[in-house]
């Protein structure tokens, strides 16, 4: 029956081609759109993972509740406060960072870590003053945890190593303060005396908020802040970022610190990615539904046109299964051929999209092209969707054909 199905398709070339086009376009669109969206999502996630630590270990500060201090003052008693306590409960720095360093060095899942101290500061140059965050770090360790070193457009990130009151600024911060490389700016923390710091580098991360920050050596900032050997955060990079959530949860249970993974910190962005995935599937479902209807309509017409063939085939001894196979095969063949053509075209479309430049020439990503995913799973899903759509669209007319009896057809024709 497959040979006869193939003949039927060849004989109605125009109809077959138009039906095939529906599946072809649907499949090609799925591959192209999925490649684009997934490539973008992967790029976004990679940016989140690279630009920031995968796990942040920070000093915990919780808002004080009305009965938050009851146990500290009056054990096992219910306290009715005349004036309930308020404010923040916690610490400003990470408690016992040395214990954390030992734990992190021993953990096989950790690739690198970087202790940090961040403080709100005031940068002053001539008459310009700008509030920003100054982060102290070991540049060699920090470069292993985030991609900050790759964002440098002037100087090297390692130029702040060893201290010496040197600072690297984000591009946005430098513009606001009006500074240039090798100039000296005054930095003051918490009303203390200003410290002159030489600007030795500039970075552009692509994120305006991040580009308002500055980095200096860990010991320089600790000294300026009056908190020697203290850190406010430990940034961690893992060997497998997908484990960040579960590891962060484990570490939260065993320490007073606030431990957050990158996905917990970027819930909004990740929910946008989920929405994109839903949108992608909805769009493709709609396209393939239309293609499926095309197959269904054409096959229905074919069954009506081929009633006499069905009658004579039945009289020759072909049973219901043979008749169902005859029409079902036609739909599946169209789905398969349209699907294969769609996959190839989709692949070529993705390859073309990969050549399109996306970033402005003056950005740190200048020269990079669109990130398009060529993941094999997209192609597998596209093939399955095409076949499933074609199969579902074909089975109803095929079953209707199978139910026709020769006597009904012969009497109608007589």
């Amino acid at each position: 029956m497959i040979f006869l199905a193939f003949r039927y398709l060849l004989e109605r070339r125009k109809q077959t081609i138009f039906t095939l086009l529906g599946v072809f376009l649907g499949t090609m669109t799925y591959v192209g759109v999925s490649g684009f969206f997934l490539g973008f999502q992967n790029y976004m996630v990679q940016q989140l993972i690279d630009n920031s630590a995968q796990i942040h270990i920070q000093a915990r500060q919780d808002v004080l509740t009305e009965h938050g201090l009851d146990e500290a003052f009056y054990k096992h008693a219910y306290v009715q406060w005349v004036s309930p306590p308020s404010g923040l409960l916690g610490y400003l720095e990470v408690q016992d960072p040395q214990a954390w360093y030992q734990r992190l060095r021993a953990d096989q899942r950790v690739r690198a870590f970087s202790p940090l101290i961040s403080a709100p500061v005031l940068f002053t140059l001539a008459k310009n003053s700008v509030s920003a965050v100054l982060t102290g770090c070991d540049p060699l360790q920090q470069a292993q945890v985030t991609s900050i070193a790759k964002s440098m457009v002037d100087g090297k990130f390692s130029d702040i190593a060893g201290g010496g009151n040197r600072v690297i600024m984000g591009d946005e911060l430098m513009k606001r303060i009006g500074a240039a490389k090798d100039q000296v700016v005054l930095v003051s923390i918490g009303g203390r005396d200003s410290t002159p710091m030489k600007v030795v580098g500039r970075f552009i991360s692509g994120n305006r908020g991040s580009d308002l920050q500055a980095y200096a050596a860990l010991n320089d900032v600790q000294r300026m802040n009056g908190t020697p050997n203290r850190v406010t955060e430990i940034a961690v990079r893992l060997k497998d970022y997908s484990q960040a959530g579960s590891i962060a949860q484990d570490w939260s249970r065993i320490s007073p610190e606030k431990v957050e993974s990158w996905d917990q910190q970027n819930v909004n962005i990740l929910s946008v990615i989920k929405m994109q995935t839903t949108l992608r599937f909805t769009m493709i479902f709609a396209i393939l539904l239309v293609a499926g209807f095309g197959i269904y309509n054409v096959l229905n017409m074919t069954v009506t046109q081929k009633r006499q063939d069905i009658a004579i085939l039945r009289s020759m001894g072909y049973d219901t299964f043979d008749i169902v196979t005859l029409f079902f095969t036609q739909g599946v063949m169209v789905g398969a051929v349209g699907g294969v053509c769609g996959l190839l075209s989709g692949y070529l479309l993705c390859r073309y999209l990969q050549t399109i430049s996306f970033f402005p020439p003056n950005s740190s990503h200048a020269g990079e092209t669109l990130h398009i995913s060529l993941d094999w799973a997209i192609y597998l899903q596209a093939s399955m969707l095409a076949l499933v759509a074609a199969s579902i669209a074909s089975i109803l007319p095929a079953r209707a054909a199978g139910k026709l009896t020769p006597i009904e057809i012969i009497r109608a024709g007589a």
Partner: protein
Amino acid sequence: MSIEAKNVGKVVGDPPVRILANISLMIEDGEFVSLTGKSGSGKSTLLYLLSSLDTPSEGSVHISGNDLGRMKSEELYRFRNVEMGFVFQFNYLIAELSALENVLMPTLKLHRKSELKPFGESLLEKFGLKEKMDRFPRQLSGGEQQRVAIARALIMKPKYLFADEPTGSLDSTNGALVMEIIKRANQDQKTTVILVTHDEDFANLAQRTIRLIDGKIAAGPEPFEQGSR
């Protein structure tokens, strides 16, 4: 005995209309029987009931000892493929297949194409279609198409040939040619032929005629005796 109908009746439609009533007959192996009667007498219906294309409302039909009503579906289809051939008024050739491919269609069911292809070619040659085996139905005349249909009906060397007004769409010359082929199939291959026709001349080519009037068998000649015609 080859085909036996016992008290067969057929009622169709809503409100029900009786087409056949209390038909009992026997057809022997190798017999050529014609079913005749006016339009609406039930002859085609009787043919379809005897050939398993339709099921009786009452009674039973036996072929080669098998009760058609009790046969399993798979069994019945196989029986139809191997033991039966059909020729209708409209040839019902498949337009997408050539003459030879149409003839060989029944052989595909049991994967006997290569085995029976030479026989199919010889049938078409015998029917004067040697040069037209690769032609499509639209490239053949009405008479040629009907000859292809008869070749298709005979390709599996069936025991039974059921023909429903095979000359109905043909001119007298082609009609005579088709009837000659059917008669030779009966004589040469001992195929049991049941022919429905309203043409008296063609009906008389059969060894026995069963006349139907208003869904009942009219009184007629005695059942077949070998060599009676």
